[in-house]
């Protein structure tokens, strides 16, 4: 009882080989695309490394897997193109026989990894937000420390970030009111105003209701108001509660999360379509069985049958179980390599068939 049998005459076999050859080349290009996508994601993540805390390394697993899968996919599908090219030549096809079993396993593995990547990119969103929150908080805290080695770049990073992503502070601009972002080197401690501010809080920090210039919104109709933001009387015709164009209203954590999630989500459809193409390639199994059947016949140009599994799913599974057990027993009892090799090959063969069975949807 063969699984999903189909009849193939010579013309259909040729058509199938040609179609699969084209599909395999398409899959090679998709593999290259996945690799480039992985590289792009990695560079984008590395660019913002300063605002991401160390434990943030976990999200780098997504671009790493993408790059690996991309390269492996290019190699695998290139092999598939060679197989398709040689499939109609009876002298060259047999050497691919052994490789095809490994091919099915690798292809199935690649599909699983791609699916895992899609799932991971959604799951890691929470970790990303958490890591950004901590990273940004540190950035804002060390904004003034332009003379401390190891932190001197934080001002430039935060300024650039706020201008590029059009955001201000962690959650909003009020985060800047709680941090001393003006360094003590530039404060005149003899001035009364400075002394008052320093005395006004427990830690002796110079806190003010002002923000750095990088929070300024260029789309505002009025020149940017940075200082005395909560004091309506400090500026003419100004109402702090209703003014929303003066500074960027978005928080940088939200802006960065949206940006990264946008990146990941845009890779989602691309990866899913690549999975579909890869699955389509599993029709190679039909080509393999049909060509093998044709070569076994007396007339190589005649009709032959193509199938997914020689026996039914249950029977194949039983066979595999028996083979694996025998292999293990043989391995235990007989440490010599010779009889085990043949068994191992047969077991790998049926395992590959079993792995290939749930995937095709012809």
């Amino acid at each position, binding site marked *: 009882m063969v699984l999903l049998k189909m009849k193939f005459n010579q013309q259909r076999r040729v058509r199938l080989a040609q179609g699969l050859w084209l599909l395999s080349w398409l899959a090679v290009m998709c593999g290259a695309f996945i690799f480039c996508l992985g590289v792009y994601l990695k560079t984008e993540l590395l660019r913002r490394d300063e605002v991401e805390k160390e434990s943030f390394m976990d999200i780098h697993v997504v671009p790493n897997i993408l790059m690996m899968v991309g390269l492996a996919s290019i190699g695998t599908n290139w092999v598939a193109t060679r197989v398709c090219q040689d499939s109609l030549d009876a002298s060259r096809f047999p050497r691919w026989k052994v490789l095809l079993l490994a091919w099915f396993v690798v292809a199935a593995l690649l599909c699983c990894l791609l699916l895992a990547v899609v799932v991971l990119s959604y799951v890691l969103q929470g970790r990303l937000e958490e890591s950004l929150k901590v990273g940004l908080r540190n950035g804002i805290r060390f904004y003034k420390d*332009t*003379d401390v080695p190891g932190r*001197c770049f934080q*001002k*430039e990073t935060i*300024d*650039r970030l706020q*201008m590029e992503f059009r955001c201000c502070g962690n959650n909003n601009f009020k985060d800047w009111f709680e941090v001393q*972002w*003006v*360094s003590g*080197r*530039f*404060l*005149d401690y003899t*001035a009364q105003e400075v002394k008052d501010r320093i005395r006004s809080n427990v830690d002796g920090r110079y806190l003010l209701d002002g923000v*750095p*210039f*990088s929070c*300024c919104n*260029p*789309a505002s*109709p*009025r*020149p*940017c108001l*940075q200082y005395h933001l909560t004091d309506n009387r400090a*500026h*003419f*015709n100004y109402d702090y509660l209703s003014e929303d164009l003066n500074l960027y209203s978005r928080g940088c954590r939200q802006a960065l999360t949206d940006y990264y999630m946008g990146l990941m989500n845009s890779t989602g459809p691309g990866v899913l379509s690549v999975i579909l193409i890869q699955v389509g390639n599993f029709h190679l199994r039909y080509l393999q069985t049909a060509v093998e059947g044709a070569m076994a016949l007396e007339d190589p140009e005649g009709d032959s049958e193509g199938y997914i599994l020689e026996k039914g799913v249950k029977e194949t599974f039983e066979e595999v179980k028996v083979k694996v057990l025998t292999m293990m027993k043989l391995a235990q009892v007989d440490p010599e390599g010779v009889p085990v090799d043949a068994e191992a090959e047969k077991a790998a063969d049926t395992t590959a068939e079993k792995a290939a069975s749930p995937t095709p949807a012809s």
Partner: protein
Amino acid sequence: MAVLKVKFTKTKRDKLAQVLWILNWISVVTGAVLFILGLFLKVEINKRVELMAERDIQYVPNMLIAVGLIACAINFLGGKICYDCVDTTKFLRWKLIMLPYIVCTFFFTFCVLVGALMCYSMRGELEESLTLGLTQAMRFYKDTDIPGRCFLKRTVDLLQIQFQCCGNSGYKDWFQIQWISNRYLDMSQQQVVDRLRSNVEGKYLMDGVPFSCCNINSPRPCIQQQVTNNSAHFHYEHQTEELNLWMKGCRQALLEYYTNIMQSIGLTVLITWLFELSVLTGVRYLQTSLENVLRQGDPDSESDGWLLENSFMETARINLNIIKSLGKNNHIDTAKNGDPNIDIPSTSKAHYGPDNVPPKTIKEAS
């Protein structure tokens, strides 16, 4: 005495035709590249068209676009011709068109060269345009409530942030214009009234700059107001402070940016011009050698190919004579009142019958 005569065997001719076919297709690609470069330049100029005064600088990208398209068309035709030239019978189809084609392409390469030179010459006009445009934009910076100018504040701010520049030639340009709108000035305050009275035109001038002039590399929070007043800020000296604001002027920054683009485009166009010229030379050799083969009659024999049949002076003289004689044929003799048939004796003898007696004139009947 032909100019640069080269002997061509049959195989050499075929090889030349094939090579020229490939080169023509490469030229089609370079023509497309020129077209794309022209489009790119047009887009870049249009992105900042608000900062440029009304000057005729659009002609450079338009020229590049036109040249690119024509190059594609000409080289496509050239490719077809060279492809057919391998076969002498097919060459007969193109025989009459080839010489006009070569002449047209020769004049076209001049256009390509002119295009390349224009890229380099555009700089002067661009500088003028930018100076005027930036001055206007800075003057209208405060007019965010006047339709048609309301976006200039945003444009100038984004320009200064992106190109890391401040003002026209430096940050001091902002001290000479009023960049804060009157809507946000409290006229009841004495300080404001003093400033307004301090100059002839009644403008609110201050030694401050917009926030977009702030340098992000500065170790200290940006000082925008009272930039020239050392005592207004702690530990500040405006003469030695270089990191606080952007030092470069926006005119220079934009000019450098556009000059870089145009120099690379100009170089590409020059290389394309050289390539086109060499392809044209090859096509001319092919044409003359094939024509000579046809003249000799044997399609497999050797033939000569040249650039010009006679030397330059001779060719120029012959062409001038042709043009002159064309002109003479059209020239009408006005001495005989325009009628060319007057006073010309009849060259044929009249036959008046077998006895050759001219007829008597018959008097009119009364």
